[in-house]
């Protein structure tokens, strides 16, 4: 009967948990136990409620199976007459209620602990953008965007897929271990949700509101997650990667990151080749998901750039559009997201690729002028 298949499945899973402990350490059958105290509490709660459900299920289905096998008309079984029994009916209101109360106690305790955002060592602000994350270290004055780094060619099936397909980014969120870090989660556009299963943290990023969470990581490592709230066309393509470092490595990373920022050469004049190389790469990261690698776009919402009026028209208008976006469309403004170098490179690339041979080479200084003009 329907039950037989079901029991087989249950045996398989339950057997899996009992006899192959390694199964839930590595395989994709169960929730990861994680590397934070909270994620381990969650895991224990999850296993507890799972077993409660399994036991209830087995009892109910066993009684049912017994009736299905033995109380059949084809076996000549005559139906009994009972149809009410007040004690029994009361019992199966009271017993489940007691089980639920017993479940609610540990669940409430963990929940209260999860909500305790006091006594944190430092704060990181996480902002969701369509379709990337921005991380700001409030104490260190560091901030950067974190983009999907899986090439479009892998998504389109033109290249073999790497081991971390869709779970890799250009710049991960770097956090120190053994620190209680407060996370402030918000969004710039629509609702996103920041989730790393190994850390036991999931928080919706709601535009206009800041919500808190916290994390205390025990072990160094790289932990991967994804956006879990539908946020538009590339919802499936905005992973979260957290790199947890020991305090010493973390301090080194902070220093390195700050030095890098100082080494930028604001006055350098780029050759067209340099611009095109950087442009192709950055275009692939920021623009190709909508406008496509071949510049042909997708339908009317994501217009083609190949032979387009913008890419072949006045440079100033082109830059302005990329900086500020187009109101009421999917085109967002990149003024805060990209550096002058990247913007110059992308615009140069768009004006010269796919047979748009304008020959223009836009310099970072051009971008800077327009950016400043905007501010005055």
């Amino acid at each position, binding site marked *: 009967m329907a039950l037989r298949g079901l029991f087989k499945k249950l045996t398989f899973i339950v057997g899996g948990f009992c006899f192959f402990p390694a199964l839930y350490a590595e395989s994709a059958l169960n929730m990861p136990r994680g590397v934070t105290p909270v994620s381990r509490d969650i895991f224990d709660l999850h296993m507890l409620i799972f077993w409660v459900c399994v036991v209830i299920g087995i009892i109910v289905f066993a009684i*049912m199976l017994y009736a299905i096998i033995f109380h059949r008309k084809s076996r000549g*079984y005559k139906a009994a007459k009972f149809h009410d029994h007040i004690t029994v009916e009361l019992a199966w209101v009271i017993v489940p209620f007691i089980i639920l109360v017993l479940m609610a106690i540990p669940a409430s305790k963990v929940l209260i602990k999860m909500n305790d955002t006091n006594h944190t060592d430092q704060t990181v602000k996480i902002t969701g953008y369509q379709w990337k994350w921005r991380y700001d270290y409030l104490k260190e004055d560091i901030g950067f965007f974190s983009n999907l780094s899986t090439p479009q060619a892998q998504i389109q099936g033109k290249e073999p897929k790497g081991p971390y*397909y869709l779970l890799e980014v250009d710049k991960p969120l770097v956090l120190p271990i053994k620190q209680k870090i407060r996370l402030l989660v918000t969004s710039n556009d629509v609702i996103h949700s920041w989730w790393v299963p190994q850390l036991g943290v999931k928080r919706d990023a709601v535009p206009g509101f800041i919500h808190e969470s916290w994390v205390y990581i025990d072990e160094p490592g790289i932990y991967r997650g994804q956006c879990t709230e539908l946020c538009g066309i590339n919802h499936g393509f905005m992973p979260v990667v957290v790199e947890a470092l020991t305090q010493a490595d973390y301090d080194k990373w902070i220093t390195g990151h700050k030095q890098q920022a100082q080494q930028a050469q604001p006055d350098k004049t780029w050759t067209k080749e340099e611009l095109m190389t950087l442009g192709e790469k950055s275009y692939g990261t920021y623009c190709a998901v909508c406008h496509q690698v071949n510049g042909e776009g997708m339908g009317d919402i994501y217009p083609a750039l190949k032979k387009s009026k913008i890419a072949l028209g006045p440079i100033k208008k082109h830059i302005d559009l990329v900086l500020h976006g187009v109101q009421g469309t999917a085109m967002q403004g990149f003024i805060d997201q990209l550096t002058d170098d990247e913007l110059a490179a992308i615009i140069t690339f768009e004006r010269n690729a796919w047979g748009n041979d304008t020959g223009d080479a836009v310099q970072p200084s051009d971008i800077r002028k327009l950016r400043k003009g905007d501010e005055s």
Partner: protein
Amino acid sequence: MEYANPWQRIMRWVTTTNHKDIGTLYLMLSLVMLFIGGGMALIIRGELFMPGQQFIDPSFYNQMITLHGLIMVFGVIMPAFVGLANWQIPMMIGAPDMALPRMNNWSFWILPFAFTILISTLFMNGPAPNFGWTFYAPLSTTYGPPSTDFFIFAVHLMGLSSIMGAINIIATILNLRAPGMRMMKLPIFVWSWLITAFLLIAVMPVLAGAVTMMLTDRHFGTSFFNAAGGGDPLLFQHIFWFFGHPEVYIMILPAFGVVSQIIPTFSRKKLFGYGSMVAAIAVIAFLSFLVWAHHMFVSGISLGAELFFMYSTMLIAVPTGVKVFNWVTTMFRGSLSFETPMLFAVGFVVLFTIGGLSGLMLSIVPADFQYHDTYFVVAHFHYVLVPGALFGILAGVYFWIPKWTGHMYNEAMGKWHFWLSVIGVNVTFFPMHFLGLAGMPRRVPDYALQFTDFNMVATVGAVIFGFSQLLFLVNIIKTIRGGKPATDEVWEGAEGLEWTIPSPAPYHTFQTPPEVR
């Protein structure tokens, strides 16, 4: 019936006020929508067969998940139950027709237009609604495509239809019962629909409010859901789920009713605990208004709210458990036989219970932080909606179709349909539990490599399940056209007024009310 010309034949269905005709229309609409929505499901599963972009782009994928959800909820499950109600409630309470026959006609005929409008968005310039069936703001307001306005209008129409249908059902049950049919003698199916109808009247206006606020946010400069103008995106979620959670019970309570008719019939034994069954439905309906924020545990609501909604959600397990225990006890020491309706009813009890138990897991807030918006949730609600609500409908159709058509359906084909459906459903949705626990978010058009195996299995299951529904289609068409004549009683253990009238049921029944002892 004889018609002078085809025009009359069509107009008979357009202008009909007969509850049996309208019931048939509802069920037909639901059947057509089942195959449209199911086709979309197969497109989704096809795209997810392997990692990487296969044959649809992410934009179209989002349109598919949105329309699949809307069509299955508003176009399949809800109309099918209203169809069953239209056919059965008057026959079960000994009434000549529904209380408000003209409104009955109107509440049906709104629906084909609503769904034409909704589906037409696929053929418009620019994407169809692409923000999921939950249409969270601001993705559906500030960022929604132009077709969103058609979606809003379609939802308004569906809401009108549901509210009128619900009013009609309440009026019929409260006013047109045969002499002697006291409330506590009502068949459970009628009880379940009475309570469902009150839920519908309570929450469909809330949905109408939500989409109207969306409309004004989009076009008239209000900022209900926009923080920049003093609104709050979470307000949308509160309003939506205040509708949405009772809506979940609107889709399952009538299925409880159907199953509570079928199990005693094929157990040849009275339903165990009639009184507690009625009470359980009422309690579930009441609690359904107090649990909406359990859909929002990670959205940033306060600790106090999280605790309250965790407890209230866990509490729903008690009346639901009562129902399951009562069904099992009804079967226990019965004299069971397993015709197709009984198979689907037993399948319902087992698989709905699995969905219910995963629901209990989801109510544990800290664990929900990991489950939320993953495939675990997708598995959960498909278990309660497909082998839950949909199996309830299929069971009801097999159970009552001999009465409607006067013919027995093909039993062998019915059994094939059941077994293929049960296998298909489990192969499709069981692996999704693992996917969710392992970290696959829902509503993604592409996924990381470690999720490949179970996605492939799920797609194979979906193909089995989808195509086995063609057996159902063939079977009911054959039953309408002919087949072994059905007796008046149809089933050996059948009890109730509907089995006292001839098969097929005459066009008008109970013109003089029967006497119920």
